């Protein structure tokens, strides 16, 4: 079976600094891969290389077997690769519903058909289902900027799923979210993973969150892959404990 995401020997240097140094891994369909490592170990740079925000200095990225190295983010997204950012990235002036419609509209029809078609691009129902799924019903018409931080984080995650993606890369989804909402977020992610066979890669510092959410965990240190395996194996790996988890 072809891996949904296949990363081979990806390198990225900025001047003399090598942020990502020959990373290889793959993610199978329906998997949730956790990506952990100390600050500055190259996790976000790796994400940006996969997603086309940065062009890798070397190496290959394949999605469903298709070579996508260096493709622009918008093209990648239309191929079914979606993401969230470390910092909140919703559109504050648009309503919650419009944020979600916006997140899905470019996956439908051509630019011209979107201009002359319905103003919601036929996505109101899908958006409202997503709103219900993330329990944001009472906020559907509110401008996203008026939501609490945790609610915006949920919206941010919901937006990543509007295009019906094959692969979603989540950059610190739990950062700054309170424990109650965190449970909600985890449940939602697991549900989407099961129901839609969506594949995830998750960067996260919250160990409990990662270990309970992910089927496999990859540890990075100084731009390289230190270990990759099931959560229990990672917890028990001496090199990982040494570099990251602490004694």
């Amino acid at each position, binding site marked *: 079976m072809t891996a949904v995401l296949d990363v081979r020997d990806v390198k990225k240097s900025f001047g003399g600094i090598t942020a990502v140094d020959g990373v290889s891994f793959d993610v199978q369909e329906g998997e949730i891969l956790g990506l952990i490592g100390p600050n500055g170990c190259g996790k976000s740079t790796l994400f940006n290389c996969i*997603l086309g*925000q940065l062009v890798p200095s070397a190496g290959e990225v394949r999605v469903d077997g298709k070579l996508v190295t260096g493709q*622009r*983010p*918008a093209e990648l*997204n*239309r191929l079914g690769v*979606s*993401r969230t*950012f470390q910092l909140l*990235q*919703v*559109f*504050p*002036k*648009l309503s919650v519903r*419009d944020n979600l*419609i*916006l*997140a899905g*509209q*470019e*996956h439908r029809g051509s*630019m011209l058909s*979107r*201009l*002359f*078609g319905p*103003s*919601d*691009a036929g996505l109101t129902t899908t958006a409202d289902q997503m709103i219900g799924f993330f329990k944001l019903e009472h906020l559907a018409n*509110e*401008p996203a900027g*008026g939501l609490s931080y945790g609610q915006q984080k949920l919206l941010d995650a919901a*937006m990543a799923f*509007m*295009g019906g993606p094959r692969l979603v890369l989540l950059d610190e989804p739990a950062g700054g979210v309170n424990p109650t909402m965190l449970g909600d977020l985890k449940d939602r992610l697991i549900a989407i993973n099961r129901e839609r066979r969506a594949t995830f890669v998750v960067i996260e510092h919250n160990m409990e969150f990662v270990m309970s959410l992910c089927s496999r965990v990859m540890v990075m240190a100084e731009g390289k892959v230190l270990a990759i395996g099931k959560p229990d194996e990672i917890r028990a790996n001496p090199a990982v404990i040494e570099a990251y988890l602490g004694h």
Partner: protein
Amino acid sequence: MTKHSKLLLVGLAVVVIAGLIIIPMNFNRYGLYILSQWAVMTIAAMGLNLTLGYAGQVSLAQGAFVGIGAYGAAILTTHGWPLIAALGLVIVLCFIVGWLLGYPALRVQHHYLAFVTLAFSTLMFLVFRNESWLTNGIYGISNIPRPEILGFPTRKPLPFYYLCLGSLALVTLAMWWLIRSPWGRAFIALRENPIRAQSLGIDTRRYTLMAFAIGSVLGGIAGVLYAPLTQYVDPVPFNLQLSLDLLMMVIVGGAGFMMGPFLGAMIAVLLPEWLRVAEGYYLMLYAVAVILLLIYSPTGILGILDRYLSSRRTQAASALRAAAQSKLEAAQ
């Protein structure tokens, strides 16, 4: 928006439109000229509002597109072309030039983009002034005919005013359609967060170019009306000052608000007329008024209304939350 406020808005629109049709029937030639100019400038400002207000791309070249439109109409109609044909040609030309002017916006933003578009504005002014074979240079082009629309002549000021008003209505409808379409949402996304927009599959390059192209077309349409309105064009009205005036109309009215350009153009075109009684001081009063407005509301006149409405919405929401809270406590 509630049903009640929607009804109120429609009612207000009907009154304003009826007023714009009926009241000017009693206006003299000069009053009609000023009002026609307001309609024309509103069209140009709406174009800039799309490029700047919605899509967030600074442009100091809108005046140049009004110039292209005006010269296009002047040259062609004095050579016997009908105005509608000139309009078609100007739309195509402005779309192409506007699209090309968008390319620098893919590389530079904000002040740097302002300077690129400023250079274009200067370039176009030099073309209008120096390429005499085409534009008749500083002598300009006179005796520009006013068109016949469906057999009705518009030589007199009132019919021509109605032509401007009708054009404004058509442009407004088209703009309203554009803004509420998925394109409008994509333009706003481009303004607020281009990187996130890209990650959602929005082709920010194409939408940036489109914002410039469509905004420029509206500048061109305004120019096509400007030429038969004044019946004489020379390079002076299309220097950098016009681009700056249009920028001010957009900002004062409220950038990114559908109705912003209407108010902005009203202040820029009509206020100086009303302040005439202040004689020598009118420009000073005008400048002070603009400064005070922008200190009080950096988002323009409609920004004041927007703030009022959103504070009311917040109040309503917190009242709702408090009610829900007390219900919850009572149930426990």
